[in-house]
């Protein structure tokens, strides 16, 4: 007797129970006198137990009660079962009818007590459940930062949010498993589940358990404020709203799989694993199925939405979240029942990947087919350059996901064309992502070449190309992009913008400098050469002023580059001017209007050169008019 009831005693802490068991032993030991009187005693005992149930019931149904009181139900049930077994072992003798009635009475009493026990089970599951602690829901407060988001496809975004923060949940998520049932009540829940199973109430037990836990999951979803939106609604949601929903959903998904489901799984195992693994699996599956499907449906809806370039980052975020969680999901649903969830999960991952690939291809195509109708004013950096470079810079954070997504596609999909294949052959050391980024950079360059042809002035064309390629090089050098595009790329492009600078210089200044040459001065006589010298100064002044007027309007936004270009000009021009002046200014001594010809001192020119490329047009002619 002791032994049987000890099945349900946990840690000997339930003194009440043990006391009652002891009492029962006493009662039973008193009824060994004779079978007749034993039947009678059993009847008495059963009636007492019936009363006990009623009193337990009326007490417990009216108030919140302690989990250890649940053991009293178990205690009563154990006794009923023992008595009923004892009864069956007795020889009914001449009292068959009475014996039979008593057996039925015992059985009915047992069923009644079982019904109460079942309610007690539900009571424990609902009353002693614990929601996930607030600290585990921390993703609610950190979400929806006001970061910029490629929200405009106007190619004008300068600063772009890199990766949506993905590690904020990791901090709490690793290995955190919560207790969904207060530890004090868990023992009782387990014991009752075991008793229900052993008494053939396994279906009821699972049903009650599943219902209670499904309620809990719904409450959880209510508390994290994830609105249920149908796919159609999601597809017509504005991008800004959708983007913030995605961030929220990603956080929810991580917390849900890593913390919530892991805890749910552990609870199922706690309660049922001793009985049968498959029951624990089945219950867990039934409980979580709907909510997992629901979350996946959100991901699916985003995947089938339009493939606007700005979506790529969120798609990759989503892909990474699901890909990251895959091992966990696989271990949660490894058993037979979970196959459907796993299939769905893989399918969504596949579609997200496909959607990301398409969006990426779409992005490249958008650059390719983007045509500027007007030249960028002042030869400055094209908004497209900024957009694309910031975009691919942000993409480097996703290189792992991109590598796996882009790897097999080149062979399979036409939309990644042969240039990648060619590049792969010549640069076997680069990753697929790197090759794609290089390809995008060269598409951008080609587009810029085309845009530069909109300038009528070749020199401005050079400035434009110089500015833009310099911008690209700077972006690459100062970010992770350098490891994707490589040193060679940087070298080549450094040279490219320097060449543009040289071409500009030649086209702009060779003419100006030509007036400072000695040609025709040595041979001629003093009078002739004075005239020539006057002309030369005059022409130099005019051409310098013209360059000044035009090029002060141009722009070299980068301070360093502007500085470099000016230094290079000043090295050539000021040097030549100083020399020319030193050699010939003496010849003009005493001539009328000497200062008309020698309008500028070298220092003046040096100062004037500082006005170039500031983007605001200035003119010298009215103040120094001859």
């Amino acid at each position, binding site marked *: 007797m002791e032994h049987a009831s000890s099945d349900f005693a946990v840690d000997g802490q339930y003194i009440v129970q043990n006391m009652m068991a002891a009492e029962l032993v006493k009662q039973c030991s008193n009824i060994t006198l004779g079978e007749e009187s034993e039947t009678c005693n059993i009847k008495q005992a059963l009636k007492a137990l019936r009363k006990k149930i009623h009193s337990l019931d009326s007490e417990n149904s009216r108030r919140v009660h302690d989990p250890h009181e649940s053991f009293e139900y178990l205690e009563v049930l154990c006794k009923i079962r023992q008595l009923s077994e004892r009864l069956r072992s007795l020889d009914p003798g001449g009292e068959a009818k009475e014996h039979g009635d008593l057996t039925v009475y015992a059985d009915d009493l047992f069923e*009644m007590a079982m019904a109460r026990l079942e309610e007690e089970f*539900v009571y424990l599951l609902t009353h002693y459940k614990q929601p996930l602690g607030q600290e585990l829901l921390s993703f609610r407060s950190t979400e929806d930062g006001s970061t910029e988001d490629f929200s405009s496809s106007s190619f004008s975004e300068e600063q772009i949010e890199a990766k949506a923060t993905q590690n904020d949940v990791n901090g709490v998520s690793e290995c955190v498993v919560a207790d969904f049932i207060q530890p004090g009540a868990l023992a009782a829940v387990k014991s009752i589940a075991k008793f229900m199973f052993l008494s053939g109430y396994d279906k*009821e037990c699972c049903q009650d358990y599943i219902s209670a836990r*499904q309620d809990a999951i719904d409450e959880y979803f209510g508390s994290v404020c994830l609105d249920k939106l*149908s*796919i159609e609604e999601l597809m017509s949601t504005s991008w800004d709203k959708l983007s913030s929903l995605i961030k929220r959903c990603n956080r929810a998904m991580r917390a849900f799989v890593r913390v919530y489901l892991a805890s749910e799984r552990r609870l199922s195992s706690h309660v049922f694993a001793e009985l049968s693994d498959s029951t624990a699996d089945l219950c867990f599956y039934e409980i979580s199925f709907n909510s997992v499907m629901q979350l996946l449906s959100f991901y699916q*809806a985003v995947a089938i939405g339009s493939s606007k370039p700005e979506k790529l980052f969120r798609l990759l975020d989503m892909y990474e979240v699901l890909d990251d969680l895959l091992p966990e999901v696989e271990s949660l649903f490894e058993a037979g029942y979970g196959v459907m969830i796993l299939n769905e999960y893989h399918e969504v991952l596949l579609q997200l990947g496909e959607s990301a690939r398409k969006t990426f291809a779409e992005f490249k*195509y958008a650059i390719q*087919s983007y045509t500027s109708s007007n030249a960028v004013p002042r030869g400055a950096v094209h908004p497209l350059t900024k957009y694309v470079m910031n975009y691919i810079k942000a993409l480097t954070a996703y290189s792992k996901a991109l590598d796996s997504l882009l*790897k097999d596609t080149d062979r399979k999909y036409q939309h990644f064309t042969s240039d990648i294949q060619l590049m792969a052959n010549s640069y076997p050391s680069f990753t697929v992502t790197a090759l794609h980024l290089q390809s995008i950079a060269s598409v951008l360059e080609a587009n810029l070449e085309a845009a530069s042809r909109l300038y009528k002035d070749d020199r401005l064309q050079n400035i434009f190309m110089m500015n833009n390629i310099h911008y690209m090089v700077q972006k690459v050098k100062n970010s992770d992009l350098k490891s994707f595009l490589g040193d060679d790329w940087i070298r080549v492009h450094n040279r490219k913008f320097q060449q543009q600078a040289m071409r500009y210089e030649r086209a702009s200044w060779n003419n100006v400098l030509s007036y400072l040459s000695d040609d025709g001065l040595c041979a001629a006589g003093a009078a002739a050469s004075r005239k020539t010298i006057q002309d030369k100064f005059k022409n130099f002044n005019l051409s310098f002023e013209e360059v000044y007027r035009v090029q002060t309007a141009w722009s070299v936004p980068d301070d360093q580059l502007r500085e470099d270009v000016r230094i290079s000009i000043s090295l050539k021009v000021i040097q030549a001017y100083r020399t020319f002046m030193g050699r010939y200014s003496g010849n003009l001594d005493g001539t009328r209007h000497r200062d008309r010809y020698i309008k500028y001192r070298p220092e003046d020119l040096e100062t004037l050169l500082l006005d170039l490329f500031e983007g605001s047009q200035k003119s010298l002619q009215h103040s120094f008019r001859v």
Partner: protein
Amino acid sequence: MPATDFQGSSSSSSPFSSFGRSLLSLRRDAPASPAMPLSAAAAEEDAGLDAFQRHVAVLLADLRGDGGGGGGDGFMSAAWIRRLLEAYVMCQEEFRVAAAAAAQARRRGGGVAQQQAERAVAELGERAVKALDVCNAARDGVDQVRRWERLAGVAASALLAAAPGEVHEGHLRRARKALSDLAALLADEAAAAAGAGGACGVAAFLASHRNRSFGRARASPTRGSSSASSPTAHFRSLSWSVSRTWSAARQLQAIGAGLAPPRAHEAAAGLAASAYAMGCLLHLASWALVAAVPCPDRGAALQAHHLPAQPPRAAFHWAPPLLALQERLAEEGRRKDRRSSCGLLREIHALEKSAQRLAEAIDAAPVPLAGDREAEVREAAAELAAVCAAMRDGLEPLERQVREVFHRIVRSRMEGLDSPALNAG
């Protein structure tokens, strides 16, 4: 992960294996085609599209002739709906191939005709996306039905566990409790479906039952004994994976909106007509799903207000069988005993009936139970157990098929998203 089997190898073989006929044999069987003006160049392509239309017709006619087979294959049984969905998947696959071929042609030739065809395909895509939510709602519905089945199974097994001649008050009480929990769920559902009118019929009967079953009101939060109003309703509204305001009737309306036969003189009548056939088939499949299992605003969906304009019988091979099925579905929804039920799915009806029969048998049973009475109770329990088993067998493949339709739509949508960049190759 690598996108290897993008065309979906997962269960694509199943729909094809269940329909053994090839396109060629279908062409032979089908009635003579109503004449359509064809340009010589497009003749070959249109012949293929014509075959497609015939195929749709044959599949629908197949679904119509459910009477003889009996068994689980009857109209609106889980197996039947599954076949309807399989038919949709099959046709969709054929249509996809045809549309791809047409897109190829467009790239070669172009022209107004192809633009019209393109538009028809795109419109169909939009309709199909609307059906995704129907699939999700139906998945929830199936989940709900599975819950009913579990409770019914508890009731049946409680009685069948007792040895013959040993069914006592305790067993009856146990069964009654499960039935009353079931009744609570069914009553909620029926009330939701019937709108403000409240539950009637089976659910009402069972609901009245639950109050007697336990004879006491306990503060415990057992679902069955809680009132049908707030807590349960709250739970239910949360369990739908579509949003709160989602309505099956409205969704059907949207799927069928603007669904009209292409004008015969349109040059691209071939592909447009196929897209039209697909649209009608999609609407029918969605309607059947929504009508079969519990889902939001199902009551309104039972009425045929959302039906698109009737396809002209003479112009399309598939119009007569489609209209016949629509008619039958509408009729079924109008039937008094079904209107208040929790789903037109045959298995649901059987579950309701058997549960009611068992509840009545238990009610009528005197205590102690003996002889005929006990046999009756046991028989009713056995019947309910069989119904549950059949339901389990039917729901699982149906659920998988619903997902298959979902994935097919998604995949074809993904293909359709190809931009000019991707088509240019």
